């Protein structure tokens, strides 16, 4: 209880690491949902927590109580309350789940008048590689996003299963080799946000973090322009170096960069993401090409309706 009530205090500290201090609509809905469910649950949790010590003490053996009914074992009215209240409560909570399920589906596009920015995410051992296909740049250890514009992540892994998460923006989702998962997020104000992998994937797991830079569109455009000047193409050779097992900092021996600003590539080998997926599932290559042809915006809705 103490722990839970201290939640409210938490919202202030550790800015940018948690959905308790949300920086986007997904995380803020999730936070509201968290508090709403906690509030509803108090209907049964509080009575239980209060009644246990109260009843035990009130009916203690050494107490001066004359009301001893050793054979009292059933009462319909009490039984109806005991079953009825949780049933009603679960019905209410079920509507909460059902109501929010589709809009909070990671695959569901976030409603906005701006077209979504696509970022392709490749999970590597102890770092994430971000490819911006429209801008034709890539980065490791840093993810720049424009504020107020939906971002559509397409994720895969070039190693074991990982879980991609930016808590302050919203949901996490697994990235697996030979498969493509999707995640839609939106940052609503500029900030530096913590991003990470939450699925243990080896001895450098704790270092698989990145800074998410949510910035105004103009700054984002400038960041892209800067990136393009890095003169460091992400070709097959560079990719094979990046995808070696190791932490981001270990790459400093191979590339010249400041780990706190991330490793930026000025151009990307065409269809790198599709190549990585197809490495594990050759037949998948065609499917994703045809998906692309259909148009990305479509996809989220399609699947939400399955």
């Amino acid at each position: 209880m103490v722990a839970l009530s201290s939640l409210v205090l938490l919202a202030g500290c550790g800015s940018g690491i948690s959905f308790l201090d949300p920086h986007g609509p997904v995380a803020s809905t999730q936070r509201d949902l968290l508090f709403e469910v906690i509030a509803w649950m108090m209907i049964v949790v509080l009575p239980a927590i209060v009644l246990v010590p109260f009843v035990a003490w009130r009916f203690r053996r050494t107490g001066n109580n004359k009301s001893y009914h050793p054979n009292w074992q059933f009462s319909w009215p009490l039984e109806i309350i005991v079953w009825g209240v949780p049933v009603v409560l679960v019905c209410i909570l079920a509507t909460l789940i059902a109501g929010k399920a589709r809009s909070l589906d990671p695959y569901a596009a976030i409603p906005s008048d701006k077209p979504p920015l696509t970022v392709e995410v490749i999970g590597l051992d102890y770092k994430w590689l971000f490819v911006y296909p429209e801008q034709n740049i890539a980065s490791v250890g840093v993810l720049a996003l424009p504020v107020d514009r939906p971002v559509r992540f397409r994720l895969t892994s070039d190693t074991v299963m990982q879980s991609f998460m930016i808590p302050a923006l919203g949901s996490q989702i697994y990235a697996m080799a030979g498969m493509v998962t999707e995640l839609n997020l939106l940052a609503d104000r500029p900030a530096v946000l913590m991003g990470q992998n939450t699925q243990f994937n080896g001895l450098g797991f704790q270092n698989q973090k990145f800074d998410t830079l949510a910035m105004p569109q103009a700054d984002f455009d400038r960041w892209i322009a800067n990136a393009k000047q890095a003169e460091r193409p992400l070709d097959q050779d560079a990719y094979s170096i990046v995808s070696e097992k190791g932490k981001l900092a270990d790459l400093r021996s191979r590339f010249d960069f400041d780990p706190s600003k991330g490793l930026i590539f000025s151009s990307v080998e065409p269809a790198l993401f599709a190549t990585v997926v197809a490495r594990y599932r050759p037949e998948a290559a065609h499917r994703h090409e045809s998906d692309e042809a259909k148009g990305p915006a479509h996809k989220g809705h399609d699947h939400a309706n399955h």
Partner: protein
Amino acid sequence: MPTTEGWWPLLFGRLSYDALPFYSAIATAAASVVVLGAITVVALITYLGRWRWLWREWLTSLDHKKIGIMYVVIAMVMLSRAVVEGSMMRAQQAIALDNPGYLEPEHFAQLFSTHGSIMIFFMAMPFLTGIINFALPMQIGAREVSFPLLNSISLWLTAGGAGLMMVSLVIGKFSTGGWSGYPPYTDAAFNPGVGPDYWIFAVTLSSLASTMTGINIAVTIYKKRCGGMSPFRMPLFCWTSLCTSVLMIFALPPLTVATGLLALDRYVGTHFFTNDGGGNMMNFANLFWLFGHPEVYILILPAFGVYSQVISNFSSKILYGYDSLIIATMCIAVLSFTVWVHHFFTMGQSADLNAVFGIATMTIGIPTGVKIFDWILTMAWGRVRFTVPMIYSLAFMVLFTVGGLTGILLANPAIDFQVHNSVFLVAHFHNMLIPGLLYGMIAAYTYWFPKAFGFRLDEWWGRVACGCWITGFCLAFLPLYPLGLMGMPRRTQEFFEPAYLPYTIVAGVGALFLLAALASLVTQLVVSIRRREELAVPGGDPWNGRTLEWAIPCPAPEYNFAVLPIVDSRDAFHAYKEKGTAYLDHRFYSDIEMPKNSMTGVVFGIALAAASFGFVWHIWWLAVLGVLVAIAAPVARSFVLDTTRIIPAEEVRRDHEAWLARLRKLPPADRAVETTPQNRGLAEAAAA
């Protein structure tokens, strides 16, 4: 070292000097403790000249009570190891802000894998199996379980698995893939070492053992109840044991399939869960949690049964809402098969699918909530005695409610997207398993200890242990809730957010209390053994009990009941005492047929453990030999027809009448002196 060519690989497979744990001082120390411990035990038994006694009275015994006690011994030993490991991890995280701490990343990863695997498969499962084995046949008025030999085989398979876990500490490294061992991380492509193999074989041995235990217990309950013991007269512990055993029967096969297919991937090169070749790792998650979720209820239901017994007993009152509790238990058992997806809401399936499983998950909250309130109503209008098992039960009810709240939060897919894989999840399942399972098992241990050994456990040290478990749990795990909400992932050896630090320090202090709790339990046992004369309860009924197991002497005779009881109500022993018919001379005694000892179980368990060791290290002759011996043992046994022995009626009469004569000289103990040496096991109600 000739490790890759010549005769060495034929004889020793992949074993080599490198397999010894000299890579880290801490690992070396841990291995030394295991080796020294084993040597000490062997030396002690040899010194005392107790090998023959041990073999005849215990290891080969088919007595359900002794098998139950041996299970609990395994559980206690493994509990000690796993609590120490857990504390090491908490200590690591308490200092891990921008600091690699004192544990190597690999060692830390091994620790969370062994801690989880041991706690689930070699602490919780043996503990509850032991308690059920011990108490259940007596509660239903039976002399033995349906299949005593199978029972011994299950015990020795579990012991073999536990032994394999201990060996992994000394020879080679254990898996770093966590207790759930998700591929592809645990596939040969990413983890070619022996670690995942240790995990696979230890878990599979435990899985097979539990399946057989489930069959045995379910059949015992179906077919071995005494006269008049209709299903709706069984104590609630029997009902929860029945549901647990049904879950074991049906939920363990998915685990066997999952570990079996993973083993094929690793040994044969198939593509079930690999990244390439058409493998599908998502099926592993699916299979594992098909087992994993019912498993949660396998663990918790027996504890629910214990709480039902304890709360009713120490409130001196009949259980409130007996039928309601049974219905709730059955609902939980069936629903537990319909919720497994909530362990991987974040894998990418559709929102509708997640919603269905989220709602199903919350539905389990209903019967669970009902149980809590039924227990509260059991205390109401009773006379509550705050003995050690009762204090555990009270702490359980409060803390479990908090765990229930966080469980409902996790059941909501949208919230789970945030806290999945975080320490919030770690806090939640420890919240269910420590106050839920562990408190229940320790309460059961305290409650039934006199029935097993004839004397009560020391009350004061019991309270100290209880206080430490409660304080330790609250300090060590409640802080993980806010930490998880703040985005701290589980299994992290180091972190970089200063905001986490205060919480991890509190959790580290909590771990110290948990260590103290463990030490108190050991002290309690030692103190109690020293004071055994004072604490003896030869009357057999130290707690003014209500169910049949209290109607017989402490410790219980091999055949439990001199004459099989016939019951005509729930809480049968309580009814006897009310009527004054609790301790009657029987007119007729008959010969009792009991199973003879058998070494089949020992041979079977050791052979399969050896085979597993052979598989892990690619020592193929050992693997094949072990499997062959394991097949041959039961086959050979099937040629033995003389498997039972007769205890003559006259001997039964003599022992029973001697006990009754002693009993009548005992002073009846008022409940006010229940925890003092004046309690000799004859309750005032019966004496009146």
